[in-house]
């Protein structure tokens, strides 16, 4: 063990003994400090996890979605519209989609009815999302009836329940054949809900959108990057909202910590005076107090961050889930994928550990450079 290390260990021993004399105060500070780090880290980890999850799954969504607008509202794609798009360089595939919403008065929830082009379904069969299956108590092979908007009752057989692991995207989905969809919604023949375009080269997407807008003035092209930006902005906004609500608590802690760290008590002044009088150097006093602030802030950071990690990734972020996700009858059950963002961790560390440690040192430095006699008499 080198002399330097031994010296630091003695200083830590001394700091801990001094902290032990004010046990309740220091333990209280550690608890409040850890709680603050826990809250901040939970919000950051949760929103980052949601943002990453959205980015990962939406990377597979169509490059361009084309809607038709009438008086600023989305309208059906009429027959002949697809032909008007014609051939656009760079577009690999154009596909018209059928989908819509259905309100189920039994559980007061909305479902998304959709026709899967790549998964042909027999007439009278449906594939349902896991949240809907849970809410209605359905399994494969069960029958379910829906009253359509025209008043007729339709009975479908559940052919399959989509995997639970895809619930974030498929919670409320009801997949059915095109014939069933058109009959259920009285959907006019030859009409579609919207159009998706697959573009091979990502650099061509904006050009394709511009060409579409020029060829079809009543169309609204929505790009995949816009969809991803919408979700990034949504979670940023929610994170900001929660942090704004928490800012009062943050400010209260800042005042508490500043008061604790910057205002030296008479006892602490006397202690510094005695240490200097018996031969301690100003540097040693500073080092001792640095350890005091450093140990508390580092312990609070580690405790708070690890508790937040367990809360978000192992207890499903139970405390913040309602605020950061949303409200719905059909709520997806999903577990976020644990991910460490180095920059986020460094930011949290810098803004929680550094200010407190620095705030501790300034008044101590002032007291340490003063004459011991003056310090003790003050």
């Amino acid at each position, binding site marked *: 063990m080198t002399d330097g290390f031994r010296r630091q*260990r003695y200083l*830590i*021993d001394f700091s*801990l*003994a001094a902290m032990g004399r004010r046990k309740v105060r220091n333990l209280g500070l550690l608890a409040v400090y850890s709680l603050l780090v826990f809250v901040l880290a939970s919000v950051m980890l949760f929103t980052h996890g949601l943002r990453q999850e*959205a980015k990962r*799954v*939406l*990377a*597979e*969504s*169509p490059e361009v*979605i084309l*809607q038709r607008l009438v008086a*600023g509202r*989305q309208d059906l794609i009429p027959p002949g519209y697809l032909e008007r798009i014609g051939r656009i360089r760079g577009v690999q595939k154009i596909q018209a989609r059928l989908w819509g*919403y259905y309100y189920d008065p039994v559980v007061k929830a*909305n479902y*998304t009815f959709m026709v*899967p082009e*790549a998964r042909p379904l027999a007439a009278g069969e449906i594939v349902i*999302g896991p*949240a809907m299956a849970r809410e209605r108590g359905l399994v494969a092979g069960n029958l379910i009836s829906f009253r359509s908007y025209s008043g007729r009752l339709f009975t479908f057989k559940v052919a399959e329940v*989509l995997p639970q*692991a*895809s*619930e*974030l*995207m*498929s*919670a*409320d989905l009801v*997949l059915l054949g095109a014939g069933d969809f058109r009959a259920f919604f009285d959907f006019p023949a030859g009409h579609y809900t*919207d159009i*998706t375009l697959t573009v091979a080269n990502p650099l061509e997407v904006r050009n394709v959108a511009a060409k579409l807008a020029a060829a079809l003035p009543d169309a*609204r092209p929505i790009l995949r990057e816009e*969809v991803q930006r*919408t*979700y990034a*902005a*949504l979670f*940023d*906004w*929610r994170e900001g*909202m929660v942090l704004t609500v928490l800012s009062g608590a943050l400010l209260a802690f800042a005042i508490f910590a500043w008061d604790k760290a910057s205002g030296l008590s008479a006892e602490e002044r006397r202690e510094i005076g005695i240490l200097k009088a018996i031969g301690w150097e100003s540097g040693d006093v500073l080092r001792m107090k640095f350890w005091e602030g450093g*140990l508390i802030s*580092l*312990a609070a950071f*580690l405790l708070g961050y*690890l508790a937040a990690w367990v809360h978000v990734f192992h207890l499903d972020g139970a405390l913040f889930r309602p605020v950061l*996700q*949303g*409200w719905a*009858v*059909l709520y*997806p059950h999903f577990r976020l*994928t*644990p*991910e*460490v963002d180095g920059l986020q961790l460094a930011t949290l560390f810098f803004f929680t550990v550094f200010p407190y440690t620095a705030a501790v040192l300034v008044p101590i430095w002032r007291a340490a450079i003063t004459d011991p006699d003056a310090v003790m008499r003050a």
Partner: protein
Amino acid sequence: MSLRCVLASLLRRQRLGVRRLRQGLASQGLASRRLASQRLASQRPSTLALAGLALGLAGLCATGIEAGVQERQPDPPSPALVRELGLTDLALFTEARYTRHLALADGHAPFQDHPMSFDHFPSASLVAPPRHD
């Protein structure tokens, strides 16, 4: 002495033996616990504090390892389903059509029912307003 008396005395002795054995084990456990707490108390405070911090740092490293292990797991079915069905939105807010498909909602949502109408759904209240730049 009757057989019953003999059996009773044997049983008594056996019980006494078990009790002594239990007392012996308990005193041994107490002694070992006392020894452990004495050892802990004899450690320097800095040793305990540095060990605690090292434990916390190990926990921090464990979070990184857990994230790395999760990253190597095979892809969950969500991306494949999104590719197959051409899905565009997360099923987080299914209460209204413009919150279920946020990315596809028209520019007039949520005030879409009639001009100057109030928003009916709480989800939309936490969606950022559009930028006006």
